[in-house]
């Protein structure tokens, strides 16, 4: 059976050319970049090339890129690292319901340690409301963290407007670029964020590696202590093959984004249109202002995990906002914040693509989906046509 992968938010395939670039760094150039002898040289240089490539993707200086073990670590460093340097009276962090769980969990831990936290709610389209942001962001805030786009429904966030507020109140601005970096250009010279989280796997690079952009002059202390790697902000011998792959992926994305992103948009729109042909189905998130690779649809009266499994049996991989698919059995906070009821969140499916997806994939999903929804509605006590 052909496998159609539409769960790219969970993981993306690593590009072959990226893997090729990584391979010599396992078996040939395996030295430690901190070593002075000959075997330290290649990895050291390769790491700096990778740093330049990642920096160039977001228009930063290479010295502003700190390699980490992935987005979660970058987010932890971004949110907690500046705490010792925050100004007097600045003891609150502001995040949003559009954020990934790692931002929520990290900020919750910050709250538990004695600081305060505010969480911005979303409007019906999945966007944070500027009115609420204006009310919430004050002089006591040391950090505002907003994702480029909602992780789940893909709605783009008003970063420029938030940035103004943040600067007005002398806070730091962290942007989580995880889901958008491979598909929408971003430049730290145009948007004056202090901290930016990047993840390699979300650029079609290897897993287990990420980066945090730290603007020059930002007061921040590292969380992982040791040999003082990465300017003392992230100790631990560098994951050289991973970093090399990350750099190669960043390069690929930079060169090819303008080719595949418009294509993803048309596949996405086709998919959305086709699925909305099913009665009592709705689009979650903004119809236009959304990530090119994200279609999030809910089907009334049915539960997400059941749909997910039936799709899986037909060779299609997706994920769901249903409580039944979560470890904690809670429905998606993002969807609830957008005003959906629990049972509506239950019936939501998230289709996320990568450049390998084709229009044929969308067509296949559209051909399979009605039967699956019908089959489950037939056994749903909520459905009384």
């Amino acid at each position, binding site marked *: 059976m052909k496998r159609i992968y539409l769960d790219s938010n969970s993981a993306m395939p690593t590009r072959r050319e990226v893997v090729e670039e990584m391979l010599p760094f396992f078996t040939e150039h395996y030295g430690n970049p901190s070593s002075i002898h000959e075997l330290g040289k290649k990895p050291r240089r390769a790491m700096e090339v990778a740093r330049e490539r990642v920096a160039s993707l977001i228009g930063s200086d290479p010295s502003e890129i700190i390699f980490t073990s992935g987005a979660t670590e970058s987010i932890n460093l971004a949110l907690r690292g500046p705490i010792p340097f925050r100004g007097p009276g600045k003891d609150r962090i502001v995040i949003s319901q559009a954020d990934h769980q790692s931002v929520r969990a990290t900020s919750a831990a910050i709250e538990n340690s004695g600081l305060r936290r505010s969480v911005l709610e979303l409007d019906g389209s999945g966007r944070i409301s500027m009115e609420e942001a204006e009310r919430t962001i004050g002089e006591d805030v040391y950090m505002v963290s907003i994702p480029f786009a909602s992780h789940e429904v893909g709605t783009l966030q008003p970063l420029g407007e938030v940035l103004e507020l943040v600067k007005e109140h002398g806070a730091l601005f962290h942007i989580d670029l995880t889901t958008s970096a491979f598909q929408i250009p971003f430049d730290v010279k145009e948007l004056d964020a202090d901290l930016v989280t990047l993840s390699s796997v979300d650029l079609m690079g290897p897993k287990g590696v990420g980066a945090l952009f730290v603007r020059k002059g930002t007061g921040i202390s590292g969380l992982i202590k040791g040999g003082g790697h990465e300017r003392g902000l992230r100790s631990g011998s560098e994951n050289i093959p991973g970093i090399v792959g990350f750099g190669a992926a960043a390069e690929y994305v930079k060169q090819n984004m303008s080719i595949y992103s418009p294509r993803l948009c048309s596949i996405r729109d086709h998919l959305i249109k086709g699925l909305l042909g099913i009665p009592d189905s709705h689009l979650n998130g903004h119809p236009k202002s959304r990530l090119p690779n994200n279609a999030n649809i809910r089907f009334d*009266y049915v539960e997400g995990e*059941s749909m997910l499994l039936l799709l899986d049996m037909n060779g299609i991989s997706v994920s769901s906002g249903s*409580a*039944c698919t979560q470890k904690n*059995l809670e429905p998606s906070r993002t969807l609830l914040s957008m005003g959906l009821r*629990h049972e509506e969140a239950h019936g939501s499916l998230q289709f996320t693509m990568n450049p390998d997806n084709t229009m044929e994939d969308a067509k296949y999903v559209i051909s399979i989906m009605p039967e699956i929804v019908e089959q489950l509605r*037939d056994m*749903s006590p909520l459905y009384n046509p």
Partner: protein
Amino acid sequence: MTRLEYTKKVLEHFKNPRNVGEMEDADAIGTVGNPVCGDMMELSIKVEGDKIEDIKFRTFGCASAIATTSMLTELVKGMDLKDAENIKWADVVKGLEGLPPVKVHCSLLAVEALKAALYEYYRKKGINRTDLKPRDDEGDEHHGDSEKACGPLI
């Protein structure tokens, strides 16, 4: 079996659930759970003498909810009422060759629905079997109380 994976047996019941649907001439219908909290289960029974002659279910829930209820209906169809009362979630889980820990609560829902149907059956006959009374029969009262509707978080 890993924490997330279903057994073949669960998937088989999920794919081909037995005894699905509504029952026109049901003697009693038990409905438990709350869509606000997540799951909802409806179970109809037809009683002939002291036996459960026929049984049907509808559910708004995950694959585990579908499979466990399907399994339960297979177990109790043709069973004496007395024995049906004593069905435990563990019997259902055993029949399915196990469930991921996080999904065990769905089998509780199936058993609760059966008890609710039996309670209703006796109530109609003028017998008040409080021991079978569903815990959650007061509509929206448990709004947001997911522990209750979705069972214990394991």
